[in-house]
């Protein structure tokens, strides 16, 4: 870094331009599909295939949204609500468990600690998709498939969160502070919630975000578990509609506009939690 900034102004300008170009291209690359989706959402069905994909025709966004919400007794709104419930509560509980587990692994010494940690670490490597079918068979044993819990319970487990929480707890929660809390008479649970949790906040926000996005985008588990469309998350619902497009071409508009609306909560979650995240990275680097 210092070398580059100490170099000739010409070189500096060149490298900066290059960086801007690379970033500009990446931004464009990532935003074009969203732009396309937005444009598609504003078009009527007739104009969707007959006008250019990346620019407006007649602006029908709100009519389309109205139609989407009305279609099939408003099942789309139900799906959105389901997704919000699965993702926010799942991420909240998932973060709590991951934080407690990671914290315990970082701050307490007990036999089998490394074994547990390594097992959890192994869990990071197993893709969630591979577990969907075994989970289905297990839930079948309890007659619990096609229920809210069949999607919710597997969602509150986050091996990666445990890993992250442990690393972060080890780095950001000083043993001396815990010692002091204990001397002041705070129990372990109270120490965790009132002292350590605060110190770990940046990591917790990260875990929450990761978990929120993972649950929101989770598709395979609901596909295998759920049959009742009032339980569907929005991903599965849209996929189901999309598979019916050949039969009922009218649905296509709803798939497009539905997909567009379904990314909005993710954007909100990211933008509102991003500050904490940045703060966390900063705190780590100072140390």
């Amino acid at each position, binding site marked *: 870094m210092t070398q580059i900034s100490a170099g000739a102004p010409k070189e500096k300008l060149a490298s900066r331009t290059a960086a801007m170009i690379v970033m500009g291209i990446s931004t464009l690359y990532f935003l074009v599909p969203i732009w396309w989706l937005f444009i598609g959402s504003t078009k009527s*069905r*007739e104009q*969707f*295939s*007959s006008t250019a*994909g990346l620019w407006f025709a007649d602006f029908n966004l709100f009519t389309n949204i109205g139609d989407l919400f009305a279609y*099939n007794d408003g099942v789309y709104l139900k799906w959105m609500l389901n997704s919000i419930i699965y993702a926010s509560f799942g991420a909240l509980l998932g973060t709590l468990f991951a934080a407690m587990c990671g914290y315990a692994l970082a701050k307490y010494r007990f036999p089998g600690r490394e074994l547990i940690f390594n097992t959890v670490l192994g869990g990071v490597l197993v893709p969630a998709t591979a577990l969907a*079918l075994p989970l*289905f*068979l297990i839930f*079948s044993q309890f*007659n619990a*498939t*096609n229920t809210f819990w069949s999607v919710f319970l597997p969602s509150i487990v986050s091996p990666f969160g445990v890993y992250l929480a442990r690393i972060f707890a080890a780095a950001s929660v000083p043993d001396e502070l815990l010692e002091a809390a204990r001397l002041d008479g705070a129990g372990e649970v109270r120490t965790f919630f009132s002292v350590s949790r605060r110190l770990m906040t940046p990591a917790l926000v990260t875990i929450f975000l990761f978990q929120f996005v993972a649950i929101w985008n989770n598709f395979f588990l609901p*596909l*295998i578990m*759920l*049959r*009742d*469309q009032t339980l569907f998350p929005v991903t*599965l619902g849209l*996929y*189901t509609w*999309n*598979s*019916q497009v*050949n*039969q*009922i*071409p*009218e*649905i*296509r508009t709803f798939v497009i506009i539905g997909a567009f609306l379904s990314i909005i909560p993710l954007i909100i979650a990211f933008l509102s939690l991003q500050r904490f995240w940045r703060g966390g990275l900063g705190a780590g680097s100072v140390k």
Partner: protein
Amino acid sequence: MHIKNSKRIVALGVLAAISLTGCAAGGSSGSGGGSDAAACAPSDGKVDLTYTSWIPGIDKVVDIWNKENPDIQVKVQTGPNGNGGTYKNFFNQLSAGNAPDLGQIEYDALPNFRVQDGLTNIASCKNVTESKDDFIDWTWNQVTFGEKDSVYAIPQDTGPMAMYYRKDLFEKAGIPVPTTWDEYAAAAKTIRSQGGYITNFPQNDVNWFAGLVWQADGRWFSNDGDKWDVTLTSPESEKVADYWQGLISTDLVSKVPAWTDEWNNAYNTGSDWTWISAVWGANSISSGAPDTSGNWAVAPMPQWKAGENKAGNWGGSSTAVLKGSKHPYEAAQFALWLNTSDEALTALNKEANLYPATKAGLKLPVLSEGVDFYGGQKIYDTFATAATETNSDFVWGPTMTQTYGDVADGFGEVLGGTGTLTDALKTGQKKTIDALDAAAIPVNK
């Protein structure tokens, strides 16, 4: 996915051996569970059934039944279309023992469920065998597999094929509407000389291609009770392949992939003039090419020999009673009502454009009206005739997903400029035999 598939194929092989030897011995042994053909008796008291289907709006149709039958309540479950995940779910549920009582299964997937022993024989359930004559002949063969005293599903809908064409463009260009495939090829030349294409050749709609073979009296599979015979390379099949190969090689058909915006646009802007398609395609055109409203018409499929009247079929599904259902009697009664009663067929057509599989259903009032998009033509009359002109002997194989995939790969190469459609069928033939063999399903090599 591959791992899971191969596991499934192993399981499939074992079951295939069981079911096929069962057939040869002249009767199903009904492996486990009280779903033997002879045991179809009404249950006592109120019965709750589950029915999985991906038909949009099916719940509204089932509501009619539920109101009329307080003692047999059907709960609708839904999901993506069959190959989009619902079939896999069925197999998962069958192995977990919690499959729904009834499931929607397309004709080309039924043999797969049959060899994996996933279906209940409902032949002895009240009114089932008797309803044979209510259905269009070929559909009944699809649900019985030609086995004696067997009915494994109730036909639901069909996709009789015809030719959609731009009436206005044909008239303007002075081209007579083709009635034979030779005339169709001649028309293709004239249309090409005017800058258009007569149609496109779709890489991935292998079941569409099968519909054309079906029309030519070709068969891709047969099963004598002991062994499967794979005949993707039968003379009829190769005749169809050669014909389309000729059109592709001389650039008389476009290579636009079906079901894309580009494809819709080709119809919307009048650069594609015809589409050989099923009855449900009527809506695909009207929604994909809205600017051409009123300019389309429907004629019977071109024939191989002048004067013949033969049609193919593309698509359609059945309502099957899945293995393990505790109430096959009630399930069968519901399936019969759903697929034969006027009120259900009318509702299914209204909600999801389903085209009935019963002979009486073809005369439903909704199907005898003119359609504005097609210049007010009573297009369903053409399809009703086509439905009765469809060969009854066409049989689907037990590994259609694999067959479709392998043939589509070959078609893709042809459109890319290498190989021929016949090569694609040869490869498909070989790979299908290999797949059946690997699954321990008896097959003639």
